[in-house]
C-alpha cells in the first residue's frame, strides 16, 4: 500500500509536484521551528535555507561532511582539532543520475540523485527535488532545501534534505 502511494506521488505531473511543494513550503515557513527532520544529526533548517552539520580539521584544514569525532580522514588528528562547522548548501551540480530501479523501502523509483560540489568544500550526493532530469545539467547551480520525506500512511510528515536547481 505504501509503495502504491509513493509511486503515485512520483508519477504526478511536474505541475502538480511543484504545487505540492509550494503548499507544504508555505506551512513550513509559518512554523519553521516545528519541522521534524529525518536526520537532525546531519542538517539543520535556517529559515528558508538548510545547512549541513560538517566539520573542519584545524590541523590540516580538511573540511568534511558528515561530522564525526573518530579522527580526521586526511591527517588523523582528533580531539579538539576537529571543529564543528555548519556548511551552506549552495553549490554546483557535478553529476546526476535518474534511478529507475531500487530496492529501498522508503522511496519509489524513479527518482533523481545529484552530486554537488559545495561552495563550502566537500562534494556530497543526495536526492534531488526534481522528479526527472529534464531541467538538470552538469554545471547548474543548486541549493539544499527541506523537502517532505516519503512517509508511511498515517505517519507524521518529516522533512529531509534534498537539492534543487537554484532559482535563476
Amino acid at each position: 500500500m505504501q509503495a502504491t502511494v509513493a509511486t503515485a506521488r512520483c508519477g504526478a505531473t511536474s505541475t502538480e509536484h511543484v504545487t505540492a511543494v509550494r503548499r507544504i513550503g508555505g506551512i513550513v515557513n509559518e512554523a519553521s521551528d516545528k519541522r521534524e527532520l529525518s536526520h537532525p544529526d546531519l542538517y539543520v533548517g535556517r529559515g528558508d535555507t538548510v545547512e549541513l552539520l560538517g566539520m573542519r580539521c584545524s590541523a590540516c584544514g580538511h573540511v568534511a561532511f558528515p561530522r564525526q569525532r573518530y579522527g580526521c580522514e586526511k591527517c588523523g588528528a582528533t580531539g579538539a582539532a576537529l571543529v564543528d562547522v555548519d556548511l551552506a548548501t549552495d553549490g554546483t551540480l557535478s553529476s546526476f543520475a535518474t534511478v529507475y530501479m531500487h530496492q529501498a523501502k522508503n522511496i519509489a523509483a524513479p527518482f533523481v540523485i545529484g552530486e554537488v560540489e559545495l561552495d563550502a568544500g566537500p562534494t556530497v550526493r543526495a536526492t534531488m527535488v526534481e522528479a526527472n532530469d529534464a531541467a538538470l545539467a552538469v554545471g547548474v547551480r543548486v541549493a539544499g532545501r527541506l523537502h517532505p520525506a516519503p512517509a508511511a500512511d498515517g505517519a507524521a510528515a518529516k522533512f529531509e534534505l534534498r537539492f534543487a536547481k537554484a532559482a535563476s
Partner: protein
Amino acid sequence: MSAPLSKFRPAYVVGIGLHRYQHMSETPYPVLGLAAVREALADARIEWPAVESVYHGTALLGMASTRVMLRHLGGTGIPMQQVENASASGSTAFRLAAYEVATGVADVALALGVDKPSARPLAGSQTGIRGIEGGRIAPFTHFALLAQRYIERHGATPEDFARVAVKNHGNGAHNKYAQRQQARSLVDVLNDPPISGPLTRLQCCPVGEGAAAVIVASEDAIARLGIDRKRCVRVLSSAQRTEVVYAESSNFDAELTRQTTAQAIADAGIAPRDLDVIELHDAFTVEEIFYLEAMGIASPGEAPAMLRDGAFDIGGDVAVSASGGLLAMGHPIGPTGVGQIAEVTRQLRGEAGVRQHDGAKLGLAHMVGVGAVCVVHVLGHET
C-alpha cells in the same frame, strides 16, 4: 618497509579449477568449493596432501566456512583461513598465497574463493556515521554518477558504454564457467530495462554463487612433485592499496586503480601496453572504460574509440575481459578474483580454446572492493 614480490623467490600458478558461476540455488557451498579444488588438483596433477596452506576468499558465507568444507578432501591438519576483503576477497587470498610461497613459508598454497549471496549489510553502514544519501545510492547509481561525469568531460554516449557489454557478453558466451553465456547485440543492451543513469540491466554484473581455486607453488615443489613446467605461470607482481582522501569530486575508484596498477606494473618490470590480456573489475560497463584509462592502456577519453575499433577484443591489441568479465562470467564476490587468475593463467598457457588471445605472454588481474580497496596482479609465461 614493504617489499615487492620480485624481491623473493619465484612463485607459480600450477593448477586452476572452477565451479560454474550461477544464480543462487539450493546447492550447499561445499559442493561448489570441492568441485573447484578437485579440478585445480587434477589440473596440476598433484594430490591434496601436497597442499600446505589454504587462503579462502569469502565475504558472505559467515564465520568458519573453510575447514568444514575442505575436511571432505581428507584432513591433513594444514593451516586454513578465511580472507574477507569485499569484492577483492579472492584477489587478496591469492596475494597471501603467492607471498607465502615466494617468502618460503610454504612450497604449495591454495587460494580459494567460494561464496553464496547473502543479505547481510556492509559494516560500512554500521560505523555510526550516516550520510544524507538515505540508502538511495546503490553501487549502480554510484557508477551512473561517474558515467554522467565522463559523458560531460569526454562527449561519450550511452552506446560507448553499452559496447563493453556487447564485447563481454560475447566472450562469456564461449565460457562454460560463465553465469551468462549468451551473446547480446548493441540493440539488446540498449533496449534492456534501465537501471540507473545510462546503465541497463545487461550493463550490471550478476551476483550469484560459484567457486574458483588456484594452486601456487615454488620451483622446489614443481621439481619435487613433477609438475609440468610448460603449464606453470609465474606471478610477476602483486600490489594492494586502499583509498585515501583524493581531490574533491575525483573518481576515487579510478584513482585507486591508477596507483595500484602503476605499482604492480612497475614491480613486474613492464609497461602497460606490454600486456596481452587483462581481467578487470567490470561490475558495471562504465568501469571498464574508466580503468583502462587509469591503467594507461588508453589515454583519457580514448577508451571508447579503441573499444569501437576492436582494440580490446580477443585478437585485438589487448584482450580485455576475455572470460566475459564480471558482466558475463558473473561476480559471486569471493570467487571472482581467483577466477580472474584462472582465466589469465589459461590464456597465458594457450589453453583458452575459442577464447584464446593468440600469443598471450603477459596478463593482469584487477579487482576493486567497496571500502575501497584495490588488488592487482601481473602474471607472465616464461616459455
